[in-house]
């Protein structure tokens, strides 16, 4: 039984049983299907950007703002209410992002290799769950249909296999769309279609199809040999020695108990010099009174 058949059989059984919980899929990239009452409400996979990555990487919200929303929502992984309240996205947009992310992650799991599946209880509320879940069989059928369509292209590409670079002809290409310009900018011979999807904040299926088309049109090309990794150390390993111990050896004995090097650094009062700066000098130099006068020039 192939990995896909195994996954299809287990998820279909979850649907029949009205299972609520998590199905963890081992493999590459693998992932986790979150189910509620036999319907898939969220899918997470290292192979596809989740809703958070889609919002952050597309620039719809900054990292600091996201962190503030997470704090505001009490540590929720998907602060949907805050995103809407602060105007970063509308409720309908978030529903679309979650649904697209679910489909995309299912595609990433199906397009990779599946080693096994394991049911388990839900570790918590599923992140970025859709309101109306997808029947698992239909979800997998749609994912495998996408994979077949991708592999039927003239230059078939796997999300985690090819690492394309811009072809020389791409420099002269004009009237390229936004996605193609971004892919040309980020394709460096090291990134797969999956990596490019994360980098650009777009779905992995969308990016993989576009990479396949661009390879077919000669805008991108795949080099046979990967970039060499230069090693700077001489072959005899010269210059490589053990790190110095963090704690010096303790003296064998000694009456004065010196500062313990392994202890936390201790701050000495007055080390900053602020007291000297603010203490009144005998000759009438700066002092606390002068400090407050500087802060509030009208004070007497």
């Amino acid at each position, binding site marked *: 039984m192939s990995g896909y058949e195994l996954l299809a059989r287990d998820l279909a059984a979850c649907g029949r049983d009205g299972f609520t919980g998590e199905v963890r899929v081992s493999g590459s990239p693998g992932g986790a299907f979150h189910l509620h009452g036999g319907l898939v409400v969220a899918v997470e996979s290292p192979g596809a950007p989740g809703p958070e990555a889609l919002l*952050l990487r597309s620039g719809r919200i900054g990292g600091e703002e996201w962190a503030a929303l997470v704090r505001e929502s009490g540590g929720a992984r998907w602060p949907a209410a805050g995103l809407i309240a602060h105007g970063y996205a509308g409720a309908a947009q978030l529903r679309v992002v979650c649904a697209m992310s679910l489909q995309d992650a299912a595609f990433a799991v199906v397009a990779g290799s599946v080693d096994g599946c394991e049911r388990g209880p839900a570790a918590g509320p599923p992140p970025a769950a859709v309101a109306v879940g997808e029947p698992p069989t239909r979800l997998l059928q749609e994912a495998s249909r996408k994979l077949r369509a991708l592999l039927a292209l003239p230059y078939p590409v796997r999300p985690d296999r090819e690492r394309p670079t811009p072809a020389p002809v791409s420099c002269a290409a004009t009237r390229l769309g936004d996605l193609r310009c971004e892919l040309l900018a980020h394709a460096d011979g090291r990134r797969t279609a999956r990596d490019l999807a994360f980098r650009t904040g777009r779905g992995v299926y969308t990016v993989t199809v576009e990479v396949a088309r661009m390879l077919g049109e000669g805008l991108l090309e795949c080099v046979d040999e990967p970039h060499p990794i230069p*090693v*700077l150390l001489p*072959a005899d*390993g010269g210059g490589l020695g053990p790190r110095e111990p*963090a704690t010096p050896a303790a003296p064998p004995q000694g009456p004065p108990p010196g500062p313990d090097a*392994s202890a936390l650094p201790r701050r000495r009062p007055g080390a900053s010099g602020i007291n000297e700066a603010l203490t009144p000098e005998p000759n009438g130099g700066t002092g606390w009174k002068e400090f407050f006068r500087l802060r509030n020039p009208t004070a007497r």
Partner: protein
Amino acid sequence: MDHQALAREMRGLREQVTGITDTAVAAADGLLIAADTADSIDPEGLAALAAAGLGLARRTSEATARGALHRTVAYGSHGCAAFYAVGDTALMVVLGDEGMDVERLHTATQPALRRIDLILTRKAAEGV
């Protein structure tokens, strides 16, 4: 030292764990040995930061009686940077995007760290 074997280990790790974007190996003092990094990363600066970060984390672990340091991981909104000690002589940096499964990375890294340590120290010992 077998340069090709070291490069194979670094590239193999990137292909083994989905989401790894860059790797670098440096001496314990922060001198860069090898980098499989994108052009946007300064590998020498990264190696120096990794040595300083691991040193600080090791010192913190000792000062707070947390035992031997395993690794440090810096999480950002666009991914994370993991720093591992390679034996007593070197360190390895792994950068990943937000999709990388960090637990899977830690599992996959352990055998690679042992092999990289052997690659670095075997020939170094022979060359002395």
